[in-house]
């Protein structure tokens, strides 16, 4: 393997990792295919960081609620500023914002802010939050030129107008310009598995992550996901930094469990992703991740802050489930063959329909890989209402 480590991650069976989903599965009588083994090829010289996931505060999730953060579908910069400052201080226990940010970054770091523009313009990482994160990083001494806002598809970032909103000097990078552009990926770091007999069985990690960035601040949104159940810290980080990931779904099945967790466990991604700030100003409770339908997008007015992606996604899953229940939509754990459709238009207009059997068990599976805490009883969930 020539200075590379070839690791075969233990592939954990789906049913054994579900949180309360086992009986539903049995009742529905749906038998899901067994996931294939996933081989991980990562640099042998990667040194795990003490900040690596689950990070400095395993199991801790700070939830900030302020209904004024989103009014008439517009995010309020001043309200977000207060929410984020309070959240980062509460997470770290520091009394100053600069000291709180300094827990995660140093002036020598090259910091990537991993945004989620898929679903733009209706629901994507709010530029207002990104601007406040930039201020926080600068307060800790990170030079403007060392900050890069990035995601996978450049054209989705264009639609979100991130370039326009951000201060001059901040790098804005799309890893891929088009669906088949693989030039931005590191050929030496990948996950390999054959899910459905696809011709390309590898997914490569972005060179930006392996070679340029030293820290990553992950800024996912709160969304239902037709394949993964929900998409939050884990899904956005794994599927937004590796390529060739759509191959893990083929109607009606998805191998997002266990692929999402395995990807997030790959070094150096695991060590560099030191903080998650989840944008819950808007929540997509059906049709995620790409829906533009306003009836499925709820102005929740939330921010979640934490270092533990598993704990944060567990809280997100609870919130999406609650909203779906309120709206009369089936649980994301439900596996009803009658709900499956291959017609995207039907899925985007009917909350009882889905494209795949969702895999919300991917969160607990990631917990089993050591990425965080998925047991609600062990999660320190601090809820702060600001307005």
């Amino acid at each position: 393997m020539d200075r590379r480590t070839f690791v075969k991650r233990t592939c954990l069976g789906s049913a054994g990792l579900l949180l309360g989903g086992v009986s539903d599965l049995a009742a529905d009588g749906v038998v899901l295919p067994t996931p294939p083994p996933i081989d991980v090829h990562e640099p042998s010289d990667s040194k795990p960081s003490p900040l690596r996931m689950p990070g400095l505060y395993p199991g801790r999730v700070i939830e900030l609620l302020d209904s004024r953060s989103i009014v008439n579908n517009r995010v309020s910069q001043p309200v977000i500023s207060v929410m984020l400052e309070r959240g980062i201080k509460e997470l770290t226990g520091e009394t100053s914002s600069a000291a709180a940010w300094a827990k995660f970054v140093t002036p020598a770091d090259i910091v990537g802010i991993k945004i989620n523009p898929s679903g733009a313009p209706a629901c994507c990482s709010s530029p207002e939050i990104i601007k406040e994160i930039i201020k926080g990083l600068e307060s800790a001494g990170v030079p403007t030129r060392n900050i890069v806002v990035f995601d996978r598809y450049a054209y989705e970032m264009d639609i979100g107008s991130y370039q326009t909103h951000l201060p001059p000097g901040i790098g804005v990078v799309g890893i891929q310009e088009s669906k088949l552009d693989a030039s931005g990926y590191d050929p030496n770091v990948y996950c390999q598995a054959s899910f459905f007999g696809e011709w390309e069985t590898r997914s490569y990690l972005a060179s930006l992550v392996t070679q340029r960035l030293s820290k990553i601040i992950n800024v996912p949104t709160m969304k239902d996901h037709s394949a993964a159940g929900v998409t939050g810290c884990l899904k956005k980080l794994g599927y937004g930094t590796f390529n060739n990931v759509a191959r893990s779904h083929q109607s009606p099945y998805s191998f997002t469990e266990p692929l999402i967790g395995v990807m997030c466990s790959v070094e150096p991604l695991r060590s560099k992703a030191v903080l998650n700030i989840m944008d819950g100003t808007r929540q997509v409770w059906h049709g995620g991740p790409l829906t533009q339908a306003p009836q499925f997008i709820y102005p929740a007015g939330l921010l979640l802050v934490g270092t533990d992606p598993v704990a944060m996604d567990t809280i997100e899953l609870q919130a999406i489930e609650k909203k779906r229940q309120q709206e009369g939509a089936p649980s994301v754990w439900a596996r009803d063959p009658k709900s499956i459709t291959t017609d995207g238009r039907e899925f985007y207009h009917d909350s009882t329909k889905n494209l795949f059997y969702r895999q919300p068990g991917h969160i607990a599976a990631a917990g089993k890989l050591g990425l965080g805490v998925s047991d609600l009883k062990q999660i320190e969930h601090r809820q702060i209402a600001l307005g």
Partner: protein
Amino acid sequence: MKETNISPGMSESPTAETDWVTLLHDSARSGGQKPQAVPAPVRARWQARSAGPVRSSPILRDGILYVAAIPGIVHAFNVETGRAKWTFQAPGQIHSTPSLSGNRIFFGCDNGKVYAVERDSGLPAWEASTQGEVWTSPVIRNGLVFFGSADGHVYAVELDTGKERWKQTLDGRVYSSAYAAEKAIYVGSGNGSIYALDSASGKIIWTTPTGNGIDSSPALSGNTLLIGSEDFFFYALDVSNGAVKWKYETGLGIMSSPAVFGDLVVVGGKDGYLYAWEIPTGELRWKVRAGQVITSPPVIGESVVYIQSGGVVALDNVSGKIVWEAWVGSSVQSAPVISGKSIYIASNDGEVYALE
């Protein structure tokens, strides 16, 4: 409907009826469609592959279609055959829509430079430097080339040499292409403000704030400046002092740039609608859903409006009813070129089509 001469004294206008020298035909963003509407295309006369995805708009002069692809290559295609006459490789990506003036083509590059290239040979003439990527389309007037940069400045350089005449900071990234009038240029900034700058000195004449950043490029109709904002509003300003004459709230932000014809202004919204207003009053003439998200500028003529939103959609000017649709290529952010009976479009998957 009468065709208003909205840009007296513009130095850059097409020399032939079939020319299309910059974004939306000419520096006035008039759209350029002549009274006769182009019928629904039935075939691709040719299809050519560019070096990669294209998000800028093609331009055309003397039978040559110039297409700037994101990987940094400008192609000069013969419109009769679809064959490349020359290509120019820039050192960075290109998102900027080129402009033509005389024998040169001008465009911005992500390496922070603006290039002037000889349009007959593809050989470089000069380059001008900024400190940020240049996605804006250079605008030429009275011997100067005006462009904005992501470094937060607007620049004026000499047309012949590229030598800097002035630069003005706008306190925000500039992705809005300037409108150049006789004595002033108008442009939006990422800080959410619309500016009027003195063409000769770059000094700020007036500033009008909006509620969010500006991607849209302004158009001018008489004494009314027209531009969209990411704050969901479309603005009509008094060009003499920046006062808001009227504004209209859409469903989401506006990245698309407006096109004008007579008293009508048309723009696309990220909410997927195409909007048409009466310029003097701000009265909505029609509003039609033309895609899921519209970010490209429309092209407007006496009877028809064209918009790229995954394909080309043609709508009746008066009613907004869809006349025809041509679904080719992947999602498209650039604007079409209408010339004679042909429509030229470039797509996000790198294909260039000549439809007729």
